[in-house]
């Protein structure tokens, strides 16, 4: 019965989205305020209904209600509770319901809260949101009904892919989806502003928190996804340039560009058309990402729930939404008047370089990701990997870092080089010193070498905007920028150091053997069978000592799951402040030996610390912006109250 309740809630929500679209269009055309007044309530009720539907699906998974096809296919009564919960979105139907629900919640939230823009622009925005939403409701209800019943009810469920039974991964899809969907709000605001010709700083100020929020979640999603791939896949790599990874990276690149251009529009009323364009592109990258992942059209190590037919549906939605938005942009771009002008050497100028470089990297990743599809049309099969992405991306990424170091020192509108000469020379000296030092001591490859030098330069430069300012009175968004830029330096340093200095050992060792890997001495103490709730494993006990210090014990496992039957490697990690020892146990070799693979990965953890810092910087900026908005709102209300009392 309860499954039908969820389905009914979804249908009503879809109908409300239809009503919202219809009332919105009607209201905009006639200026008919009576129809337009339906738009906000429709969005709010829709959000509540979607939340109800998602709650129902969660409940079905908690109870392991096997009469529902989705639960039977993806869950199992013996699974730990946390993975029963994450099973809700660890499959196609559930993840699409999550998408629709988050989108409805975002729509409901702006309908409920947002009062700063002209009402016509708000109606246009919510109409665009309803249009995008309606496509996804159709997709969910017509081709991926999560509440479908199964008859007869099976005795036991089929379980969840063991690779997905992981706490980190339980949180990964919701995080990315919140990011993707947050960009849909930016998209709707862009369309709303275009429709009502209100492309101005107010629009950018209203859109900015949504972009920031989406960007924070995308950053966390990328960071967590990279760490998950690193320890769960057992290959010791943290980025594979896999299509699914690229699918998450592309919206992040677009959102990063949008974040910076929206801040130019909000502060300086420049880059109007460009910001609108990025708003459209950012969401199209989200949809493209969903399409690539869901359709399984590209070979990927991460693709779990794929179905080509459903891919076609998403592709159609993508073409409809993005094509429509681009057409609207083409028609209206001419009417967006020129913004404020600025000199080349100014904060705006630096941000333009940042935007162009990010867009170029986005284009490079996009081409590399889609190239196998293009060549396949001519019957040639290729795969594109690090030899393409690393050097070609670096051509734009490295100069962008130079601008990242210097840009925040510049003033808005116009600046003189003489004014910032001192700090720029200091930053350059730090970078060159590290470059020379690392080159003479270690003699590593070019890209990691440049990476380390730039990481040092950016780290120093990121704190330069604090010079000569009162730290207590510094606005939170500036702190956010400092922390996020510093995070970029930390992550970059981790990437460069790990690439340059990692040391790998691959051996077949007998119990009692000692293996050296870089500064580590690792002894294989024993290999024994162990059992978990839904798996058995061979567990090696290793004692590892760093530079002759106190040995620490780690236990990598080779696990065998039985629902569904599958084997996975559970890598064991030993974390120090300056890196990680990564140990994997393989199969048994002849003569009672065990395959053992060890990596010493200097500073590898800094990659993810950096990612978290970047997201934290975003959070500081978001809090600062929202607090500022609240202050202004209450100030306005007080003024209004005073005027009200003053007037007779």
């Amino acid at each position, binding site marked *: 019965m309860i499954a039908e309740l969820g389905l009914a809630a979804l249908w009503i929500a879809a109908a409300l989205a239809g009503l919202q679209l219809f009332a919105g269009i009607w209201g905009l055309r006639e200026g008919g305020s009576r129809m337009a007044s339906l738009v906000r309530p429709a969005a709010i009720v829709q959000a509540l209904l979607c939340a109800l539907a998602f709650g129902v699906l969660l409940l079905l998974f908690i109870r392991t209600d096997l009469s529902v096809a989705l639960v039977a296919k993806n869950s199992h009564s013996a699974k730990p509770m946390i993975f029963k919960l994450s099973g809700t979105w660890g499959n196609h139907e559930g993840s699409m319901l999550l998408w629709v629900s988050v989108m409805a919640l975002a729509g409901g939230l702006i309908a409920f809260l947002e009062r700063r823009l002209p009402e016509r622009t708000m109606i246009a925005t919510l109409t665009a949101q309803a249009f995008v939403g309606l496509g996804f409701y159709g997709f969910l209800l017509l081709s991926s009904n999560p509440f479908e019943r199964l008859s007869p009810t099976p005795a036991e469920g089929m379980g969840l892919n063991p690779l997905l039974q992981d706490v980190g991964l339980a949180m990964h899809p919701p995080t990315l989806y919140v990011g993707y969907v947050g960009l849909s709000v930016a998209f709707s605001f862009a369309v709303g502003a275009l429709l009502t010709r209100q492309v101005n700083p107010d629009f950018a100020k209203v859109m900015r928190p949504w972009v920031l929020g989406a960007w924070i979640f995308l950053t966390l999603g990328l960071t967590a996804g990279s760490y998950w791939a690193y320890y769960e896949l057992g290959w010791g790599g943290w980025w594979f340039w896999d299509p699914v990874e690229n699918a998450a990276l592309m919206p992040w690149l677009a959102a990063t560009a949008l974040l910076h251009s929206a801040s130019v529009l909000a502060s300086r009323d420049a880059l109007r058309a460009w910001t609108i364009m990025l708003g459209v592109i950012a969401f199209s990258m989200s949809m493209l990402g969903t399409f690539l992942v869901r359709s399984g059209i590209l070979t990927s190590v991460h693709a779990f729930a794929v179905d080509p037919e459903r891919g076609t549906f998403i592709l159609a939605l993508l073409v409809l939404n993005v094509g429509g938005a681009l057409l609207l942009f083409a028609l209206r771009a001419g009417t967006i008047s020129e913004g404020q002008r600025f000199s080349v050497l100014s904060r705006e100028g630096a941000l333009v370089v940042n935007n162009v470089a990010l867009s170029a990297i986005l284009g490079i990743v996009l081409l590399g990701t889609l190239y196998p599809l293009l060549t396949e049309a001519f019957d040639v099969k290729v*795969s594109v990997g690090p030899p393409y992405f690393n050097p070609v991306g670096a051509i734009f990424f490295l100069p962008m870092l130079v601008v990242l170091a210097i840009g925040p020192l510049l003033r808005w509108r116009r600046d003189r080089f003489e004014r910032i000469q001192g700090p720029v020379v200091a930053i350059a000296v730090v970078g060159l010193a590290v470059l020379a030092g690392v080159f003479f001591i270690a003699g590593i490859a070019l890209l990691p070498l440049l990476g380390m030098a730039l990481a040092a330069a950016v780290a120093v430069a990121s704190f330069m905007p604090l010079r000569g300012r009162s730290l207590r009175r510094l606005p939170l968004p500036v702190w956010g920028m400092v922390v996020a830029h510093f995070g970029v330096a930390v992550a970059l340093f981790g990437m460069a150091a790990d690439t340059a200095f990692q040391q790998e050992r691959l051996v077949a060792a007998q119990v009692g053997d000692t293996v050296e890997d870089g500064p580590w001495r690792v002894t294989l103490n024993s290999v024994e069978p162990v059992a978990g709730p839904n798996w058995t494993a061979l567990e090696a006990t290793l004692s590892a000592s760093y530079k002759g210090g106190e040995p620490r014990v780690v236990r990598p496992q080779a696990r065998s799951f039985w629902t569904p039957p599958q084997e996975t490697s559970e890598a064991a990690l030993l974390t120090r402040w300056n890196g990680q020892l990564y140990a994997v146990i393989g199969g048994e070799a002849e003569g009672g030996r065990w395959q053992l693979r060890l990596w010493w990965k200097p500073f590898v953890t800094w990659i993810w610390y950096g990612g978290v810092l970047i997201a934290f910087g975003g959070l500081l900026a978001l809090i600062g912006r929202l607090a500022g908005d609240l202050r202004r709102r209450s100030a306005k209300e007080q003024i209004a109250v005073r005027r009200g009392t003053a007037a007779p």
Partner: protein
Amino acid sequence: MTTGFKPKHQRLVLLAVALVALIGAALLAAWALRNQASYFYVPSDMAAEPPEPGQAVRLGGMVETGSLKTRADGITIDFVVGDGEARIPVVFAGIQPDLFVEGSGVVAEGSIRPDGTFEATNLLAKHDENYVPRELEDMHAEDRREVVAETTE
């Protein structure tokens, strides 16, 4: 430069800068893709027209039953990848993927050595019980049936 552009010119200049950078990126990408993409071979293609030794390519096919041997060091394996027409010897040093077994499909990344052996740096086996490397989908019907039968049990 300390002077601002005239409004009209500024928009044009920005547009030109963006276009030049993006077209440059696209050309660069196109050029790099031609050189850096690693091509996919099935054994019969590789036997007929072998790639340059050392060039990064992928080889996909079935691991022949009975061909898998481990060397004395305990970590280097030799096996043969076939597609029913040709057989390519492969050598790989490392821990085999969890689902790498004889008679199943595999995609090996690496390059061919002058002696005709394929030196794999990475093996991509199926990732979960439903995963078939996409390249294998277009293999000969018989092998494909085998792969499908074996991966959907």
